[in-house]
């Protein structure tokens, strides 16, 4: 079992390394270099060749690409993502608190979404073909068909403007303590839960139906086991496995949702930082955020693999 897990771990590290190559190549090598990318056309027009050369030398952009990549990778591994080109701010400092805030939002969302998805998926499977199933399936399609920026603004309209229970825009500051941030995060969390739960519900439902139709559930039922026992002991663990196997997709969807709601509600997280950085072409920040997100997705996937191994003895000996 330990060997199987170590193998996954090594594969995951390989994926992260490939992501660093992709991030670096797509932002610094293919389009030219970070300096050209970050300058507007007006600024570029005012600069002479000598100015370019001097700025490049300042930023270390005159070195060959592999050397720059190696330098960037080593620094990033130590948590140093360089400085922004325009404000010369330390990127690590720029993203530290927003990262904390986004992780907080992610955790709360997952804590709400996962149990809810399990409950809805199982109810839909248990009463399949009947009203609860129809409601869950249609609701799921509606949930992931409506973009988060639309449902988020709709919630603002309903619960901040028409019935003013929550603030329309979050007034919390980046460095506020978690309790303040969470107090303001009800609508954002609700928005992401609605948008991201659908996929999980469908996976759990399908997995549970498969388990209910299985030979082992039939055997247990014909051995006189009660419904509750069959559901909890025999069917449930097996039905979670397909959902766990596509955990990477779910986490990726969750992160996308978080980026959007941060913009919609003005939540001071990494998503807002990212959007501003892309607009200003702050390459170092975009690189850092992409890398962090990839590490989170890969790590969650690894965690899901471990959970599958815990639930399914066959996965352990594989």
């Amino acid at each position, binding site marked *: 079992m330990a060997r199987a897990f170590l193998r996954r771990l090594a594969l995951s590290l390989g994926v992260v390394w490939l992501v660093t190559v992709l991030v670096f190549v797509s932002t610094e090598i293919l389009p030219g270099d970070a300096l050209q990318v970050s300058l507007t056309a007006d600024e570029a027009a005012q600069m002479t060749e000598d100015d370019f050369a001097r700025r490049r030398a300042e930023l270390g952009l005159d070195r060959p690409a592999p050397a720059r990549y190696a330098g960037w990778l080593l620094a990033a591994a130590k948590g140093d993502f360089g400085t922004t080109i325009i404000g010369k701010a330390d990127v690590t400092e720029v993203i530290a608190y927003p990262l904390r805030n986004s992780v907080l939002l992610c955790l709360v969302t997952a804590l709400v979404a996962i149990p809810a998805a399990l409950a809805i998926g199982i109810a839909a499977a248990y009463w399949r073909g009947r009203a609860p199933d129809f409601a869950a399936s249609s609701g799921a399609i509606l949930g992931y068909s409506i973009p988060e920026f639309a449902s988020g603004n709709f919630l603002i309209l309903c619960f901040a403007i028409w019935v003013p229970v929550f603030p329309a825009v979050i007034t919390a500051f980046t460095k506020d303590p978690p309790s303040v941030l969470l107090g303001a995060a009800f609508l954002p969390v609700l928005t992401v839960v609605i948008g991201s739960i659908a996929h999980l519900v469908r996976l759990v439902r399908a997995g549970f139906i498969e388990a209910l139709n299985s030979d082992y559930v*039939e*055997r247990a039922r*014909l*051995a*006189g086991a009660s419904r509750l*026992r069959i559901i909890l002991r025999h069917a449930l663990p097996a039905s979670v496995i397909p959902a766990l196997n596509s955990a990477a997709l779910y986490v990726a969807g969750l992160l996308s949702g978080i980026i959007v709601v941060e913009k919609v509600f003005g939540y001071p997280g990494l998503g807002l930082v990212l959007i501003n950085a892309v607009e200003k072409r702050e390459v170092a920040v975009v690189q850092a955020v992409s890398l962090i997100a990839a590490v989170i997705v890969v790590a969650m996937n690894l965690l899901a693999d471990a959970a599958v191994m815990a639930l399914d*003895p066959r996965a352990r*000996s594989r």
Partner: protein
Amino acid sequence: MSFLEVKGLGVGYRRPDGRLGPAVIDAAFSLAEGESLGLVGESGSGKSTLARALLGYCRPGGVITSGEILLEGEDIRKLDGAGIRRLRGGRVAFVPQNPLSSLTPHLRVGSQVAEAVRIHRRCGAEEARQATLELFAAVNLPDPAALYDRFPHELSGGQRQRVVISAALAGEPRLVVLDEPTTALDKTTEIQVLELVRSLRDRFKATLVYVSHDLNVVAEMCDRVLVMLQGRVVEQGATTRVYRAPAHDYTRRLIAAVPRIDRAAQAVAPAAGGEPILAVADLAYRYATRRRWPWSRGADDGRPALAGVSFAVAAGETLGLVGESGSGKSTAAAVIAGLIAPDGGNLRFAGKPLPTLASARDPATRRRIQIIFQDPLSSLNPRHRIEAILARPLALFHGLAGAAARKRAGELLGQLQLDPAFLDCYPRQLSGGQQQRVAIARAFAADPDLIICDEITSALDVSVQAQVLELLKSLQRRSGAACLFISHDLGVIAQVAARVVVLRDGTVRETGATAEVFRRPADPYTRTLVDAATRGYASLPDLPGTSAAANGTEP
């Protein structure tokens, strides 16, 4: 009052359009305490549905529509939820067909049996554990304490079935319903499990309902037999009476279609002398395990699939290759066909060395060696009409196209007693037997000198099997092609092959004339196989003509 009495039982399954399709129609029978009843029929006959109904249960989508099921005078259809749960696994127990899929994969086998014990004996955890260990011992599982903590996938097929049987015994049932309990097992394992079931029945004085498609097994296990056809009971009575003097025409055909090794069939014998069409010598093959890392070498674990296998097939003859699962017989077929390259040994075809992979063989050689696969549906491309399926080899090997190809394809279907109108059908529109006959037609379309048949009838019902085998033999005689016939069923081999090679664990155990080998096996393993295959014959009558079923039409 009988122990079990079923009256006017009907079961239906909900179809996609919402209506009920009948699966069991007006079934009635009764059974005395301690008797055993065999439910016999082919696939789709409703025998498994009837068996499940005895526990007041239907598969998802099914409903019991009518009738009474009286167990010791009490109608189990009238029981409430708690009553039916006490009945299931208590007075009536169920043993399913596939022991691997019937055990919950993420639970230890001991705890699954203990669960049944706790439900029906209402005892504590420790007591249930002791009872489970006793049950494990009762079904002859080795080292019960160690097995208790294993997961289902860590057990062998026979062990799993013993675990499932022990779980069924947990509630000390009066009636045990067994649904094809040995179909997923090898013949030699099947004997042991049957032996166990019989000894347990005697010990616990339980009444048995035994579902099987295998008439031999039913003859051996059951006092009474009930024959089903398309949801209806067509005949029932004492096993010896039904087998010796079947009243219904269908029963007669079913019994006649059972392939038997004690009956001299007109097997296809070699033409006079000459060089063999195929000679393999010292064939070796080992499954490569998938490399875990790019730099690591594939580890060789487990036994080789083939080790030093040699045999020859004479022109025009049928050579049987017989063995249990894992014996390497299908690997041998894949090597000779050119699907996989062997790790050692050499192949000669018509006197010349045969390149290993099909892609390395010249087109004429590819034409001369054809293979027919086990699963008829997946061997035909579902997106091609039968005409296109047959036209492809005709175009590739004989340059036939258009009307000429269609005419020839129609003739081939005719030789297999299929309506040429099937040319415009898709494979899915045909029954399993018809699909397999199309696959045979495709192989013969190439006009081959050697046909490899890899378990071609094991997915078919017994009456269809008899028909397919007869057609294969007649086509083979007409074309003069030799045949390498691979099967796990000695009866089938006896019917088609003049000579036989017995394989076990990738090595040849015995070779010789089929009649001789099966009558006087020299190797102890062959003897075990022959013993297993001849069980239950005592009650099978000698009805005239084994080919009676071949002349009948498929249902």
